[in-house]
């Protein structure tokens, strides 16, 4: 995906009153729900710390745990594939589907599959991917893009969904009653579940000790995908491994409370390889790197890999609540997207994202695994600035760099600083600032420097 800078991408959403209203309402509601269920747990801070520490230890020995996972999955009758990047992962999945003569795959919501654009790759291979998560189905039927990690169609209201279903599903009559809409989707999906030869899922956790894969969801459609078709393919980012079965105790408390604001999610599916006469007879686990080991190599950035995709940071973010997810132009929007996307896709591709934050710190405060998102944002800004400086031609023509350097020069010396203060006082009041600073005066008056600085007063008193 070729990306435009965030400020530009944000503009349509900022100017859309319906979207602003939908997002404001949805994020406020889920935020309050989360706060309620988090407050119920007296040991929430200890849980967060346990989650953080578990992830840190796992990432430190990622190679060991991944090989353990591979061995355990294979011992339980599953197959493990290693995919270096999106192309490799797509080839593996498409190849498996073709080997089984499938022209259709039923999918449970998987961010990793969207990251590698699996559906598009399958289409090229002549395999149709059917999204079975209700919101994902809405996105797929309307040829739209997700705008939230957990609630991909957060930007759509039910009137729009009714119109979409009437147009795309085999229904003649439909109201915008949520239950009726869900029933129409259910009937449509049930046919796909019964037809499908191959099911596909992502993974929330993969337990190294036992080879167990875990998917949490709300609708039960995921469980249909993971149990009905004879062949199951699971795509899992390598950072999703956890060492021990008992580690799930921590994460299965942290995740639902942080994401949907529920004490427990309705469906938690756990499977270990294959079991005769129960569920799929063939199981493939595809372990995806796609840039993750590069993230791991960055001492500050690596904490990003601890993310359990709860989306609590989106719901508290003042930027996300106004711009929505599309402005981030990535399957990973919001604060976590602002640090994950540039690390996976590169700063050349997504260099404006680390700046899409006021550094208010609300994301860090709610993160169930204590990812210091503001710290990583500042770190990535530093890398972006360094990358700009590394090209002499770009550095010379960079007005921001010139301004920052000259201000640093002024601040580095008291005499220069005091002279600059005098100069600021001589300048007349500006109603409109020029150049890159004009954004300030678009809706804010500019203060004028009073005749006497504080230090002048101090000296004169």
């Amino acid at each position, binding site marked *: 995906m070729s990306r435009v800078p965030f400020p530009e991408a944000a503009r349509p959403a900022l100017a859309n009153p319906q979207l602003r209203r939908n997002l404001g309402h949805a994020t406020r509601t889920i935020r309050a729900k989360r706060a309620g269920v988090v407050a119920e747990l007296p040991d929430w801070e200890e849980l967060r710390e346990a989650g953080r520490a578990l992830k840190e230890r796992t990432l430190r020995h990622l190679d060991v745990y991944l090989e353990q996972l591979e061995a355990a999955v294979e011992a339980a009758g599953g197959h493990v594939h290693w995919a270096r990047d999106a192309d490799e992962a797509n080839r593996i999945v498409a190849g498996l589907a073709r080997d089984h003569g499938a022209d259709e795959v039923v999918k449970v919501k998987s961010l990793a599959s969207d990251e590698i654009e699996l559906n598009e790759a399958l289409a090229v291979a002549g395999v149709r991917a059917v999204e079975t998560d209700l919101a994902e189905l809405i996105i797929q039927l309307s040829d739209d893009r997700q705008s939230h990690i957990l609630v991909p169609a957060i930007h759509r209201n039910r009137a729009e969904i009714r119109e979409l279903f009437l147009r795309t599903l085999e229904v003649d009559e439909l109201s915008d009653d949520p239950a009726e809409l869900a029933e129409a989707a259910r009937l449509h999906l049930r046919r796909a579940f019964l037809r499908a030869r191959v099911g596909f899922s992502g993974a929330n956790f993969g337990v190294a000790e036992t080879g167990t894969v875990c998917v949490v969801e709300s609708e039960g459609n995921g469980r249909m995908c993971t149990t009905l078709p004879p062949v199951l393919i699971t795509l899992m980012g390598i950072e999703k491994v956890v060492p021990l079965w008992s580690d799930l105790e921590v994460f299965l408390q942290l995740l639902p409370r942080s994401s949907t604001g529920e004490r427990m999610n309705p469906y938690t599916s756990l499977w270990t390889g294959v079991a005769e006469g129960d569920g799929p007879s063939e199981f493939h686990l595809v372990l995806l790197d796609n840039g993750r080991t590069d993230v791991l190599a960055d001492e500050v950035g690596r904490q990003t890999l601890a993310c359990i995709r709860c989306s609590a940071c989106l719901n508290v973010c003042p930027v996300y609540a106004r711009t929505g997810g599309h402005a981030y132009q990535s399957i990973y929007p919001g604060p976590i997207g602002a640090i994950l996307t540039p690390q996976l896709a590169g700063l050349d591709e997504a260099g404006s994202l680390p*700046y899409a934050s*006021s550094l*208010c*710190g609300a994301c860090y405060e709610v993160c169930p695994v204590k990812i210091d998102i503001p710290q990583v944002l500042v770190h990535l800004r*530093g890398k972006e600035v360094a990358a700009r400086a590394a090209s002499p031609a770009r550095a010379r023509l960079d007005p921001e760099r010139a301004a920052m350097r000259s*201000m640093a020069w002024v601040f*580095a010396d008291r005499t220069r600083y005091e002279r600059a*203060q005098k100069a600021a006082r001589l300048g007349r009041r500006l109603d409109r600032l020029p150049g890159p600073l004009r954004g300030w005066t678009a809706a*804010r*008056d500019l203060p004028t420097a009073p005749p006497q600085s504080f230090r002048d007063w101090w000296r004169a008193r």
Partner: protein
Amino acid sequence: MSGAGSRKASSRSEGMRVALFITCLADTLFPETGRATVRLLERLGHEVDFPEEQTCCGQMHFNSGYAREALPLVRRFVSAFGDAEVIVCPSGSCAAMVREGYERLAASEGDEALVAEVAEVAPRVLELSEFLVGRLGVEDVGAYYPHRVTYHPTCHSLRALRVGDAPLRLLRAVRGIDLVALPEAEECCGFGGTFAVKNADTSIAILSDKLQNVLSTRAEACTALDSSCLMHIGGGLSRQRAGVRAVHLAEILASTEASAA
């Protein structure tokens, strides 16, 4: 919290020597905030010292990705304030920059000697309300401010310094004040330093919701701990000719019956 007697400004006879870290923004654009801080601290019986070598803490540079440019400013701060027993700052974000950012910055630039110096000086930096309530145990500073006021907790004072309700305790003790709660108070105002110009549209969208909340309180003044956020909120209020002022907490706490007259 100790007994009621110790919370009275007049009862604190033991004065401290306080180094004022004014911030470049207040020094240049909002000197009244600095004057108010001095008046307040002196009224409470403390001796204020102003190390004139101070300039800017480097927060804007650091947060914008210019750590290398900020590094000399860290060294400068450490040398300007090295001897001070306690350093008081009328800004949550500048205090947080020194307390949290400096060590990280010095470490990232590989200056171990500076890391050690920072570790010495950083814990002595306190934001004004932290100093008053947390260090001195004072809530009633003897202020008088007969106006309707709402308080916006700035993000860095709230989430980095964790000043908690210290500013509200101080405000509640002000005589004549009509303190009204700000709806959705803990939401960012949208300033964010260079964010306000780099992502001006989003910054203004966030501000516009903050202003709506401020206006809904029918307050005459919106107060906070940071001149930067107040410049942003006040700039928006001024552009709207809203008739609401942005006022730093120090100015409210420095006001007395005598100064109001």
